[in-house]
């Protein structure tokens, strides 16, 4: 059947979490929706698979902390299987040879710095207050700077009002720090090097930013805007891994009536009379729809699937300049047992481990990445999900999963085929100095550089957020100024990926917002 199969209102390209959220929202609104996923399973970059026989991981995603609670409630993800194996991870900063600093343990922190132990809870409270002021805008369209349209003025006013509601003192502080860099913020606030570096790592993780890069405070606030069970800034490990959350989203979409087809890579978007009319799959199957919604990154969606021939040159230029080269790699290790060094750590299964070379070391690691070389001591965020969820590995065995900052998309000299193994060994060695004995327990390993992530998950640039989260690429400027409300220049073509407002991490917000835009447009638009 190559001719147009049964008509749909909306065809969604890509079953990443945003595509799934959009599918669920649309279907619930009674809109006939089909979601087309290239891989054999949904989940996008959080797709579940075995990187080693019997050892399961969730692609790039190892922690859930940003998924909007409004979405969890509205889609009743609890009923569809969302469970937490751990819902408020402690943070242990590793100090080498099995030593660590428990950042959430006030007494332990007080031993290295009484002042910091005093200030940290207050610091978190302040950051969360600021994050709360920004959070509501995550589930709303960003305003366009077209003031002839009252809706934009109103949206801006709302935004301003929310900031003002913080009270004068907080508002001033927020307006001051929002353009600041993490290095200055933590240096002004704290004295302990480990604590400073740990907060800075959270601030820069996933972005092409060093602690000294302005804007890295915004990314920290963006992170703090997340919550688990109403607990702001809390980090969770879902039962079954983040992949299970993807399954819950898919279940929510299906139960609402959305059709999900895996193994169906989309080749391009059909355009007729300057409007999107459906999609063509790699196998030539045509699927007609009134609206096409792409979960793919902006460049892939606009330049490959849609095609520059349908766009004006200025728009194409802007899209090409969208900064989306990833800087974060993913390391998976299959362990046949835990070394004592790990078994001796507290909060078994309820903690994540940070490996930071100090604040300056963090900056140096970024420097290496700037010049497209591999840093000597890459910072890492490590979790061992099997400690709280044994189902992810064979009986008694374990999975170690690490986000590795910073790893360049491409190398200045040579290519990754030559360097991948070397980096993997280097990473394993530096984990082994922190958690002695790990090395001898490894039975399988997988390292995904940003380029690998791009290829494996069809994520252009291999960037965590489908594109840098920096002040010149967020909100009313994301992905392309003037086209921030999910509607692209070709009628009927929409984006719903992390490359749109508010950005990446597993928030579901872009998918939710895009769905609202589609629903609104379908209401007003007469059926053909």
């Amino acid at each position, binding site marked *: 059947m190559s001719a147009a199969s049964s008509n749909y209102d909306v065809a969604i390209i890509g079953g990443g979490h945003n595509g799934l959220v959009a599918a669920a929202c649309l279907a619930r609104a009674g809109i006939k929706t089909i979601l087309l996923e290239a891989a054999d399973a949904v989940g996008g970059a959080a797709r579940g698979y075995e990187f080693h026989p019997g050892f399961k991981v969730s692609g790039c995603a190892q922690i859930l902390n940003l998924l909007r609670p409004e979405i969890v409630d509205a889609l009743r993800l609890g009923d569809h299987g969302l469970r937490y194996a751990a819902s408020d991870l402690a943070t242990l900063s590793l100090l080498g040879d099995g030593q660590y600093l428990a950042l959430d343990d006030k007494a332990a922190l007080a031993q290295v710095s009484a002042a910091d132990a005093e200030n940290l809870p207050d610091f978190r409270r302040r950051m969360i207050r600021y994050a709360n002021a920004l959070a509501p805008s995550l589930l709303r369209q960003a305003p366009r*700077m077209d003031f002839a349209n009252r809706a934009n003025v109103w949206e801006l006013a709302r935004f301003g009002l929310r900031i003002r509601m913080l009270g004068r003192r907080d*508002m001033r502080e927020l*307006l001051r*720090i929002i*353009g600041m860099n993490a290095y200055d913020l933590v240096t002004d606030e704290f004295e302990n090097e480990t604590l400073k570096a740990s907060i800075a790592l959270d601030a820069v993780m996933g972005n092409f930013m060093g602690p*000294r890069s302005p804007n890295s405070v915004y990314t920290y606030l963006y992170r703090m805007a997340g919550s688990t069970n109403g607990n702001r800034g809390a980090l969770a490990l879902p039962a079954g891994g983040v992949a299970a959350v993807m399954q819950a989203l898919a279940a929510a979409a299906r139960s609402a009536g959305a059709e999900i087809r895996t193994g169906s890579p989309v080749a391009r978007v059909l355009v007729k009379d300057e409007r999107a009319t459906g999609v063509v799959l790699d196998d030539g199957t045509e699927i007609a729809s009134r609206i096409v919604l792409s979960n793919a990154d902006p460049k892939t969606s606009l330049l490959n699937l849609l095609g520059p021939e349908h766009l004006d040159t200025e728009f194409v230029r802007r899209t090409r300049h969208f900064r989306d080269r990833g800087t974060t790699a993913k390391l998976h290790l299959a362990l046949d047992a835990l070394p004592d060094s790990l078994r001796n750590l507290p909060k078994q299964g309820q903690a994540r481990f940070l490996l930071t070379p100090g604040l300056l070391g963090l900056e140096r690691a970024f420097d290496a990445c700037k*010049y497209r070389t591999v840093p000597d001591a890459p910072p890492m965020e490590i979790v061992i999900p099997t400690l709280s969820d044994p189902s992810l590995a064979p009986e008694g065995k374990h999975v170690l999963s690490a986000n590795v900052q910073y790893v360049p998309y491409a190398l200045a000299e040579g290519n990754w085929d030559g360097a991948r193994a070397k980096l993997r060994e280097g990473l394993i060695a530096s984990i082994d100095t922190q958690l002695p004995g790990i090395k001898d327990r490894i039975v399988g390993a997988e390292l995904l550089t940003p380029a690998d992530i791009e290829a494996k998950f069809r994520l252009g640039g291999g960037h965590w957020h489908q594109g840098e989260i920096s*002040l*010149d690429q967020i909100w009313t400027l994301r992905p392309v*100024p003037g086209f921030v409300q999910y509607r692209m220049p070709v009628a009927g073509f929409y984006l719903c990926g992390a490359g749109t407002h508010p950005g990446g991490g597993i928030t579901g917000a872009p998918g939710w917002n895009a769905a609202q835009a589609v629903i609104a447009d379908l209401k007003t638009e007469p059926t053909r």
Partner: protein
Amino acid sequence: MKRYDAIVVGAGHNGLVAAAYMARAGLEVLVLERRYLIGGAAVSEELYPGFTYSTCSYVCSLLRPEIMRGLDLPRHGLQVIPYEGSLNVLTDGDFLASYSNHDRMRRELMRHSRRDAEAYDRYALEILRQCKFIRPMLLQMPPDPTSLRPKDLVDLVKFAKPFSELGEKRLYETMRFWTMSIGDFLDEYFETDVIKGHLAGSSIIGTALGPYSPGTAYVLLHHYMGEVDGSIGAWGYARGGMGSISKALAASAQETGRCEIRCDADVTDIIVKNGRVKGVALADGSEFYADTVVSNLDFRRTITKLKWTEALDDELVRKGENFKIRGSSGKLNIALDGLPNFKGVAVKNNPALSGDIHYSPSLNYLERAYDDWKYGHWSKKPYLDIVIPSLMDPTMAPEGKHFMSVFVQYVPPSLHDGLWTPAKRDAFGETVIGLIEEMAPGFRNLILHKQVRSPWEIENEVGLTEGNIFQGELTLDQLLFNRPVPGLAQYRGPKKGFYMCGSSMHPGGGVMGAPGYNAAREVLKDLRRGAPA
């Protein structure tokens, strides 16, 4: 003891501008300067017989034309000689010249890249638009977005108006420009390293940021928003060195007969009674009284170094200590026996030689120079901004000889292995001279005398904390209503009758005079003396 209406602490150019406007409005003004000469960082000194050194700041462009006219500076002896080009010397014998003559500039760009020459027109237009947009804000007081007082709301609306009138597309461009890194911005226009390196220079001068740090595009703007004789973005030399600007400002102030200027007067205390300033005390114990005291010192110095007879609250002191005012620049002043021969560059009346001569081969070169600074080293391969004013202004050096000013980015305020020492300072100077020798073989033999200055020397001599030439970083957290800190951005405070007029205030550094003008206007407003003449 004589009472004054206003006392200005520090005779930097902003202090003098403020003094001049207050005196012209009828106030009895006393200006107190710690050093033996006025001018702060805008001074001319004869440090070697027959040579005039512009010891610190070395070129001018930013000085607001409104002030130039308002204070009648040309009549008071200020003459600005515009220069017609600049040069980016490459050590391989090639170079990139730029000329104020547009066609000639294009031809030169063509020589390096036809595509970039095309892009240059779009680039230049965008920069010009950004300059024209920001210029009216320079002489405005930043609004207080947190205040709900009707007056402040009106200010806010007034301030926001130009933004709302920009139109959607232009507003996006402006939002991006104010938040982007110059590296990303230039990458959107150009493909050639040397062209990008050349254009990026102005975005890092005086700033503890690299070309790929967000916010550096704005810093570039800060260097471009000036003008000479009405041509925007043009730069020139003050005839007789930068000190002539200070002299002209002082003359304009003293012409009123109401402005007294005292040098060697080191203000140490601010006298406060019941939350109101009453005057100042000097190191020698003498006191001077006035109900209005205006500080030209940088914010951190004003808050943490001056002794306040009624203590400031701890939170403000902490803010003063956390104010980002980073030393990132050094300076060499050199007396030359003749004109250096830069590789491949024609010496005879070459307009490109008359302006800045850079060493800035690429964005990555600048970024690496910045990396050294981050870890407490001076850049092993620094960015240089060299000028030879004596080419345009014969008063700077004897016939046939030349004064050369070398601005160096990046140089940390203190080093990874401790504070600056004379030995380290000389090693730093050697790094710079070695690089110039590479650009102009034989340069070393022309040196008659040199003065090498790290941020440490600049701080100790001129008083700029950490030797920061802008009295504070020009980053979003310290611009507009955030400059110097939220709540003190309107030139007033921290005590009643106390004002701040230095570059720590909006719109920031450079020999612009805007903070001095704005502060004077607010003083006169509070004293009901009407708008400045």
